[in-house]
């Protein structure tokens, strides 16, 4: 019967500490990336270059 048994299977050593560590690493990676990523656009969108968008014409 497919009923949840809340942990009868062997645990995998996972706990809250691992979750917190992983989330800290993820956040740190994002913050670091913001200082590494380029400051100017690689390709400008039409409204940046001043080209008229057909709908705006």
């Amino acid at each position, binding site marked *: 019967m*497919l*009923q*949840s*048994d*809340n*942990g*009868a*299977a*062997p*645990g*995998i050593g*996972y706990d*809250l500490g691992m*979750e*917190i560590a*992983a*989330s800290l690493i*993820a*956040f740190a990676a*994002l913050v670091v*990336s*913001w200082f590494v*990523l*380029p400051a*100017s*656009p*690689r*390709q400008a*969108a*039409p*409204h940046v270059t001043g080209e008229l*968008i057909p*709908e705006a014409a």
Partner: protein
Amino acid sequence: MDKISAGDTAWVLASAALVMLMTPGLGFFYGGLVRRKNVLSTVMHSFFILCLISVQWVLWGYSLAFGPDFKGWGIIGDLSWIGLNGVTLAPDKDYAATIPHQAYMAFQMMFAIITPALISGAFAERKRFKAFVLFSLLWATFVYDPLAHWVWGHGGWLSNLGALDFAGGTVVHISSGVSALVAAWVLGKRITHKPGEEVEPHDIPMVVLGCALLWFGWFGFNAGSALAANGLATSAFVNTNTAAAMAALTWMTISWMHKGVPSVVGATAGAVAGLVAITPAAGYVTPAASILIGLVVSLVCYGAVQLRDRMNVDDALDVWAVHGVGGTVGAICTGLFATTVINSGAANGLFYGNPKQLLIQVIAVGASWVFSGVMTFVILKVVNVFVPLRVSEKEEAMGLDLSQHSEIAYSPS
């Protein structure tokens, strides 16, 4: 009569109001993303559904979704609560023992309203208003109401199986997202849409405003689903904000890497994806897990947007990529991260030593995908027999604001 809690009742009623606000908020979010000649049509989709389903829910929707199970099949409620007959101010112990039954009904009504409204983003800029009205009424009755009964109804088969869905990852987001993909495919592409071509949003501040209203309302959506003013509601509140924030940061970063700029629209899309993913998990996981869910959903949904771009389907506002895929990610993550430390009345997930829960979540996800997709296809075909689904090419080129409503959003003077 059971003792009614003033605190619980106040919180659930306030949450119902918060969720109600999400529907016009969605109208702004979608409205800003379309071209200016279609903004009124897009906003009207949301506003009209708010009115339509408010009445449908009272008349028969609530009875089908949450009424006594028909013949014990676990598929649909019966009609014994038609017109809210028997839905009194006394609590219903099967659903919420400390608030009036009508408060529970009102709260659930707001979910029933926003779900079909979400689909409208897929067929924006080309669906005939009459067809939209008929489709929405049939979809709410034959897709949303049964699915809500399966997952949340007393005796629903997915509820009996033990599927965990705190506030609607399957019922709301997977159903609307998959239905959106089917609707976009059946309706066909916009006449001006070419693969790989992006249509510029006409009002990005409106998009951000809409996103903010959605985020604000989502506190009622998730934290209100605790159905009590208690610790679990607080937990869901914290998880909701955390996942949305992390997902927005992640999406913005990915778009920065991919396109060289941190996109404002991308940040709002990420926030919504995070809110979608945390919806089924909000009352079962830790705040740290919410951060990870926010990270993962943005990675996956951003990829889904790129995939949709390559598909021959014009899901105009990426409803499938954000809601369908995001809801799937959230439901699966619930099966991974759920812990009885947060919610002792629920179950542990895989990471806490219970792999069966993940399998149950996969079954719930699969059932939602198949049921929503097939039923939406059938409903669209039925509607098309009576009313053409699409406007004409001339009407589409003119814009739906003029062709369907004879109104323009912005006066030229």
